[in-house]
């Protein structure tokens, strides 16, 4: 039974922070390399359990390039004890890591189709590996549109990289913010409001969505209005985790466990529970 789990499924392996970048006041990106042995591969959308020694363990998505085998990259916001301890780690310091766990974005199913990637706030982090994959296999996919919403222009994650991507002719990126001052010339409004403006061909498009749950609800409604079938919409769901192995039930979401059936889930498979509050 345990053979199906990664080698470090139960006990964290030691990793070293090789670089820390402060993205915003309370958001940091950590680059990690294994203190010994080889780094496992991961699929875009998967997460690791990061352990801050003596504090605790939390689920954090991989946000780096799946093509870069040498390191794991994670972007995290300091919200409580564990995430704050992790966000404070500096180059040279150690942490524990189990993983990678969970399901990934449908990179194979989407070959030959258009993609619309919709991210809200830090939800861009779990989608960035999908984007790296798409861009390094660009010829395998149709049109790629990224719709990204965040609170304020100063909260745009991966700003330099987004500026670089925006110069590409084979990628459309639209950014919207909830509030802005007059110096901002882009969109203001919520990210689902960008959906009707994106020329989506519903028969031939997959949507990958990640962000706060309220934002995902409105986004799914917008995608359904645009004609997308539920089986073409994928969401990354978040629930607090403990074992990450489908054993403890902490991450239960209706009849499913987010740690093993998710975090990336096809909307038609969670349609009923998604519509129910407080699950």
């Amino acid at each position, binding site marked *: 039974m345990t053979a199906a789990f990664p080698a470090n499924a139960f006990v964290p392996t030691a990793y070293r922070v090789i670089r820390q970048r402060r993205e915003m006041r*309370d958001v940091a990106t950590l680059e990690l390399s294994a203190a010994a042995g080889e780094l496992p591969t991961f699929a875009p959308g998967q997460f690791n359990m990061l352990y801050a020694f003596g504090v605790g363990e939390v689920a954090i998505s991989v946000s780096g390039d799946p093509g870069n085998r040498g390191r794991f990259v994670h972007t995290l*916001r300091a*919200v409580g004890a564990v995430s704050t301890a992790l966000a404070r780690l500096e180059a040279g310091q150690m942490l524990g890591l189990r993983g990678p766990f969970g399901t990934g974005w449908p990179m194979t199913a989407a070959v030959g189709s258009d993609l619309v990637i919709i991210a*809200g*706030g*830090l939800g861009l982090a779990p989608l960035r590996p999908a984007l790296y994959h798409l861009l390094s296999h660009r010829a395998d996919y149709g049109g790629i549109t990224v719709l990204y*919403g*965040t*609170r304020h222009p100063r*909260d745009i994650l991966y700003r330099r990289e987004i500026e670089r991507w925006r110069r590409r002719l084979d990628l459309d990126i639209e950014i*919207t913010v*909830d*509030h*802005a*001052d*007059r110096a*901002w*010339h*882009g*969109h*203001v*409004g*919520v990210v*689902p*409001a960008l959906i009707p*403006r994106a020329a989506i061909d519903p028969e031939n498009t997959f949507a990958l969505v990640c*962000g*706060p749950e*309220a*934002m995902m609800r*409105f986004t799914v409604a917008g995608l359904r209005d645009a004609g997308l079938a539920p089986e073409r919409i994928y969401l990354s769901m978040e629930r607090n985790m403990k074992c990450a192995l489908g054993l403890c039930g902490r991450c239960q979401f209706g009849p499913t466990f987010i740690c093993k059936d998710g975090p990336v889930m096809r909307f038609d498979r969670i349609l009923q529970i998604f519509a129910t509050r407080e699950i």
Partner: protein
Amino acid sequence: MEGLDSILAEQPFFAALEPELSKIVSGCARNRRFDAGSYIFHEGDDADEFYLIRHGRVALEMVAPGQAPVVFNTLGSGDILGASWLVPPYKWMFDARAVELTRAVGIDAKCLRGKCEADHHLGYEMMKRFLPVFVRRLHATRLQILDVYGKRGK
């Protein structure tokens, strides 16, 4: 030059509007152009004209005393600008500024209100188009108020 009724007919907002009704509406319409940076209207002005944006981008702003203006929404091609023309006292509640060169069809509010009053079929067709726009904006505003991108419970 393109006739106003054919310009209106191309707009998704007026899609499937009967040609006779479209003619009546275009009788209240005129072409408008706003340079980048110019104001289309200011808070407190009479809401005597509303706009169907053809190209460009418009920022909706609110000003609190002693503070810099806050942009709370932007509108673009195909969007309707302005609802206050529909409800008394017909005054704008915010400023609207063209962020870039913006072309729009301006519709004389008093003229259209009069025509809708005289022809309730036209009035109902108009309401069927306006109401979903405003309901969608209400929902979007609710999501915006939730301020979902911060720390939970903050």
